[in-house]
């Protein structure tokens, strides 16, 4: 059956335009290896487990903001790199430390609440300690074991408090006061890993303390990379009416440059947005230090974090992969700690208009990545994703995706365009 028409390409060639049969559909794109991805990188559980081992167990990951634990003995629990439970604690010395939240005795979770203070005693423990409710073992805010009930009677010196401190995890606080952890004890310092990717946002982030005002999370049926990729390509502006109305019509919008950094990070340059062009929105008056009115900047940190600073509010999106088809997405909104109540209210409204759970863009983004996962489920017939737009590194260039998969390939030792091919091949 022939269903062909002739088409003249922008390059002036004449090509036959037609539908494709199975063999044609399955054929690799006629593009460089770096310009497309085999969809098995999103669906294969073996590749997923390898990503946890080779990427998430070895890179710096943001887990929360320092304002979530403002006082000594405050804590925050989370999970990183799949299901590794952690507890972040601010010690009496005001230093923030992170520990694996697993009791070394019988493997129970120690601190169960999402957040709180250790100054209050648990039913079976003392104040200022983390207590495992199971057998009453306790640790201080430095992670040192402080109590083993009937220690001497039961262990006769064979097991003692000195042997059973918590597993401490490398922790640094940086880039707007976020708490970053790395599960690899021998990892490079955070600054080396970031490799300057935050430099063009450092004035906004680090001139004065920030404070969280918004936290939401969802377990979404999608691969974590797909969510991160929505932040790394702006070609999907066409999905968002908000972007079409406020950004794409503005002069210079398409000139905004993408910059790639070592270790897979990528940043988009400053642009200004006419927010009031979206009916019902107001001009954004508030900004961050050094940020022009209505400005917008974004930094994507490999493998699963995005900072997006839209004029009055900072959104930080963090993904925790659960399986090849499930991702915990956490979204935080932040303003300046010194905000007046009126300023804070204004920032919150600005934030929620786009990124809240009822926001205009977030819902569309989540809908898209969930549907991508449905479409490219194993056996669905999905084969390749194309990331071949080249527009001199400007905003609809897909260089952000290509830089991501270059780093992914380097760390995994597999080609993203053909994950059965090892790099040494």
């Amino acid at each position, binding site marked *: 059956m022939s269903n062909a028409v002739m088409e003249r390409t922008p390059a002036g060639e004449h090509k036959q335009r037609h539908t494709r049969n199975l063999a044609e559909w399955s054929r690799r794109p006629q593009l460089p290896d770096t310009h497309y991805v085999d969809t098995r990188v999103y669906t294969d559980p073996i590749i997923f487990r390898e990503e946890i081992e080779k990427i998430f167990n070895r890179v710096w990951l943001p887990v929360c903001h320092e304002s*979530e634990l403002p006082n000594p003995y405050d804590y*925050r629990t989370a999970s990183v790199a799949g299901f590794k439970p952690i507890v972040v604690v601010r010690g009496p010395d005001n230093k923030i430390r992170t520990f694996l939240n697993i009791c070394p005795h019988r493997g129970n979770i120690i601190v169960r*609440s*999402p*957040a*709180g203070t250790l100054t209050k005693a648990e039913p079976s423990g003392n104040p200022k300690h983390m207590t495992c409710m199971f057998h009453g073992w306790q640790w201080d805010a430095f992670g040192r074991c402080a109590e083993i009930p009937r220690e001497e009677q039961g262990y006769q010196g064979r097991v003692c408090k000195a042997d059973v401190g918590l597993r401490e995890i490398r922790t640094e606080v940086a880039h707007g006061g976020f708490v970053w952890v790395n599960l690899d004890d021998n990892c490079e310092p955070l600054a080396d890993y970031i490799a300057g990717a935050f430099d063009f946002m450092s004035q906004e982030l680090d001139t004065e303390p920030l404070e*969280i*005002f*918004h*936290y*939401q*999370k*969802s*377990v*979404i*049926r999608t691969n974590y990379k797909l969510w991160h990729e929505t932040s790394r390509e702006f070609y999907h502006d066409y*999905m968002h*009416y908000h972007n079409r109305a406020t950004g794409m019509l503005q002069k210079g919008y398409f000139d905004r440059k993408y910059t790639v950094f070592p270790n897979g990070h990528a940043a988009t340059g400053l642009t200004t947005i006419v927010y009031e062009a*979206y*009916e*019902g929105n107001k001009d954004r008056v508030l900004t961050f230090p050094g940020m022009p009115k209505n400005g917008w900047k974004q930094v994507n940190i490999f493998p699963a974090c995005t900072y997006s600073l839209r004029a009055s509010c900072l959104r930080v999106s963090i993904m925790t992969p659960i399986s090849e088809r499930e991702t915990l997405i956490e979204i935080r909104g932040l303003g300046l700690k010194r905000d007046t109540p009126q300023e804070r*209210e204004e920032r*919150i*409204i600005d934030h*929620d208009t786009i990124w*809240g*759970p*009822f*926001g*205009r863009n*977030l*819902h*569309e983004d*989540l*809908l*898209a990545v*969930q*549907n991508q996962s*449905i479409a490219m489920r194993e056996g669905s017939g999905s084969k390749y994703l194309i990331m071949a737009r080249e527009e001199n590194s400007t905003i609809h260039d897909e260089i952000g995706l290509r830089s991501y998969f270059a780093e992914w390939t380097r760390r995994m030792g597999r080609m993203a365009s053909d994950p059965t091919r090892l790099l040494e091949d």
Partner: protein
Amino acid sequence: MTNRELDQLQQVHELVYESCLRLNAEDWKGYLDLCDPDSFRYRIVNYSPEIRREQCWMDRDFKGLKALFDLLPKHNSDHSPLTRHATVYKVTFDESAGEASAITLLSIYRTQLDGVNSHFESGQTSLFAVGKYEDRIRLGNGTGPARLLGRTVRLDTRQLDIGSHYPF
């Protein structure tokens, strides 16, 4: 309870339930007809134990809410219908102001349509969110019917899947 008090109670019940019926029907204009255009304020809030503070996820006045409804056709939404199941638990009256406050327990169900694989999942209903309405109501009198002056949706549910373009 006097006839007047019974009448006022009935006004509150009818207004709250009618607002749910109109939202369920996606009759946005009809919903706004139940709201006072000069003073209506709509908010969705919750308390987050993760960051240990109250947070607001939507804040609109009448005009802002109308703009939001008007722009819905331009957005790519999950069109799964939401069904609000409400029970008015408590009504208190401020006779001097001619106003009432009502607390209504709320469950919201989502019947899948196109947000997921429609062949497999459309038609499935699941509980989407629970919470309550905290309404401020101007009672009807000789000059007009009862109207919503303000609605705060206080959510217990803090994970809303892919979220929603539709207010609760």
